[in-house]
């Protein structure tokens, strides 16, 4: 996840399921989802990557 934050912080990414492999990224979740499907990933894993990692309480 650290790599994703460094490279894609603030963006939506589509991951190949059960992996950390990014198949599409961008600002629009819908576009990223469709782009991943065009690349053959029927149901990608969407992740809004935090802009940076800040310890969280809640």
């Amino acid at each position, binding site marked *: *996840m*650290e790599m994703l*934050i460094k490279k894609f912080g*603030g963006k*939506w990414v589509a*991951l190949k*399921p*059960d992996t950390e492999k990014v198949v599409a990224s961008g600002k*629009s*979740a*819908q576009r990223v*989802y469709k782009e991943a499907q065009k690349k053959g990933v029927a*149901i*990608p*894993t*969407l*992740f*809004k990557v*935090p*802009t*940076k*990692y*800040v*310890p*969280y*309480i*809640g």
Partner: protein
Amino acid sequence: MHFKYPFHIVGNDKIPALDIRITNKDNNVSTNYRTVLDSGAFANVFHSDIAAVLGINLSKIKETQYFSGVRKSKRLIKGKPYIVQLMVVQKGRSHMFDSFVVFSDEVSDTGFALLGRQGFFDQFDEVCFNYKNNKFYLQKD
């Protein structure tokens, strides 16, 4: 059924993140979504962009769900409640259930989608964090 996951390690923190499948029962559109288990969250809180992916028109939902965090602030966070189908899948095993979700566009840019007490923790017999061994478990009898 027993589901076991490793913590995601970021810096010196361990995050109980898991990928869950969400389905809009009205049109059967599904996506997987990376989320974090949060026993401090009253319910599941997902980014409103996910609703758009699923074809859910939040502007048609009249009810608004308000919630707050630990920060000292008079302003409440708001979102739109909806019932979706969630599914946990691992190694050929799955547990699927209808779930209460709040979709919000006020989620922090440094935050994660949250799986909370209503709509997730209440769907399992045990949710166990074994921090020392870097694992967390979901048990459904």
